């Protein structure tokens, strides 16, 4: 693994501290207080803020067919494609952020459950001119604690 060079999928999306506690980078409008992600540094009336790392699952779905590529740059071979989940997590800053989820089993996802931000390997690309391979990292939300399987979702959310 030492010859892997890790890179974020885009600059300015998330912090990447050595303690393994990344945060998403957002903009807060000075006048309205409205928070948006990703940050929009081109605007001159916003401040950059770091979003809370934990929130609640607002809603989610799964992606069970290979997404059209382009734009998708992940695995597109139907034989090795693995379904993934995406969802919106409601954060204390008054924002819903859409992200990939580390869990894609419908039995293990429940609206309202606690989620936290993590960085996950997305794809690996060969290095240029024999250099080290590059592992592209993106952000995702992971369940904070495993939930008991449920037969159907209730209305507790």
């Amino acid at each position, binding site marked *: 693994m030492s010859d892997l060079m890790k890179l974020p999928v885009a600059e300015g999306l998330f912090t990447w501290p050595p303690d393994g506690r990344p945060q998403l980078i957002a903009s807060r409008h000075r006048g309205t207080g409205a928070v948006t992600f990703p940050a929009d540094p081109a605007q001159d009336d916003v401040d950059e803020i770091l979003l809370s790392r934990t929130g609640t699952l607002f809603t989610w779905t799964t992606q*069970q067919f290979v997404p059209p590529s382009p734009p998708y740059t992940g695995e597109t071979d139907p034989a090795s494609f693995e379904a993934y989940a995406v969802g919106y997590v409601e954060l204390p800053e008054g924002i819903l952020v859409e992200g990939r989820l580390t869990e894609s089993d419908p039995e293990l996802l429940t*609206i309202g459950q606690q989620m936290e931000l993590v960085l996950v390997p997305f794809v690996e690309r060969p290095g240029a001119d024999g250099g080290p391979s590059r592992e592209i990292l993106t952000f995702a939300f992971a369940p904070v604690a495993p939930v008991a399987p449920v037969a159907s979702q209730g209305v507790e959310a």
Partner: protein
Amino acid sequence: MSGVSIIGVGMHPFGRFPGKQAMDMGAEAIRLALKDAGVGWEQVQRAYAGSLVVSNPDAVVGKLGLTGIPVFGVFNGCATAHIAVSLAAEAIEHGKADIALAVGFDKHPRGAFSGEPAVLGLPEWYGETGMFLTTHFFGMKINRYMAMHGITPGTLAKVAAKNFRNGALNELAWRREPMSEEAILAAPYLNYPLTKFMYCAPDEGAAAVVLCRRDLASRYSDSPVHLAAAELRTRRSGAFEVSSPSLPAASVPSPTVYASAAAYEKAGIGPEDVHVAQLQDTDAGSEVIHLAENGFCADGDQEKLIADGHTEIGGRLPVNTDGGLMANGEPIGASGLRQIHEIVLQLRGRAGARQVPGPHSVGYTHLYGSPGTGAVTILTT
């Protein structure tokens, strides 16, 4: 829209037509609509043409006759057809034409709609990491709606089965095979909780409508249909909308709710007066949600209403009597004109095997499109 009537409708079948250009389908739909209206192309004074894949849909006039009239190409995502109709109607109301035409045609490849995120002003990583799929929105919206309002997967299957059953009665539809609720539920998920047979798919086709000053309509048609309202609204901050890397947590209603309320007010008609409706059924969950967003029931009432057959052709409010998007597919530029085509047939009482029994003087159409647009028309006899 007090002064505009529809005097002719025409539709090229929806489906797959290898080797046939979208524009040829559009020209056929126009000729059928003109024949239905009993007017010639040379009598059309203004036209609006919508398409996703044809970059110059106004070029369709080359297939009909170069009469020199103003022709406008239009595009607003899945609400494109509404734009064509409402602009044609406004031109008539503003005295720019007595007879105007709206047409839409498209020809999409197989598979989910896709593209570069930049077309919606979104960052590249959003597409690279597999988040830029409109189908995610539909899965996520109905997943939360089911949890909040007690809708079950069986109700989604009932909606899909009803639309395929209606499509089987429609000779212009793409999918004409009925399918059991069990088979719909047992199919693999595309995006939980939506299975493969709970989605519409992009395809090919065309539809056209001829509009006319209401006070002149009886010259051309023995059964003109009055365009009582045509209203479109875009999303407000806080609405839960498609292709959004983030959203404000303060929830506000969908643009459909505002478009619908404006249309009812304009027409002086309430949801209880509507006899037959076309609601955007991109997926079975969308039809369930749109019943409430368009004022036809309260959130959660769908579970019982659909079980009781309320939205079947013989029910209290038949919905998507021609099979909707699920049985017809979605050629984006034409889809909303197909909805109007069906409502006009129903209001005339000429919808054949799928004619709604009982009164049929008030019809309703609804489109929802990316990036957050709701569009409604109300049609009356």
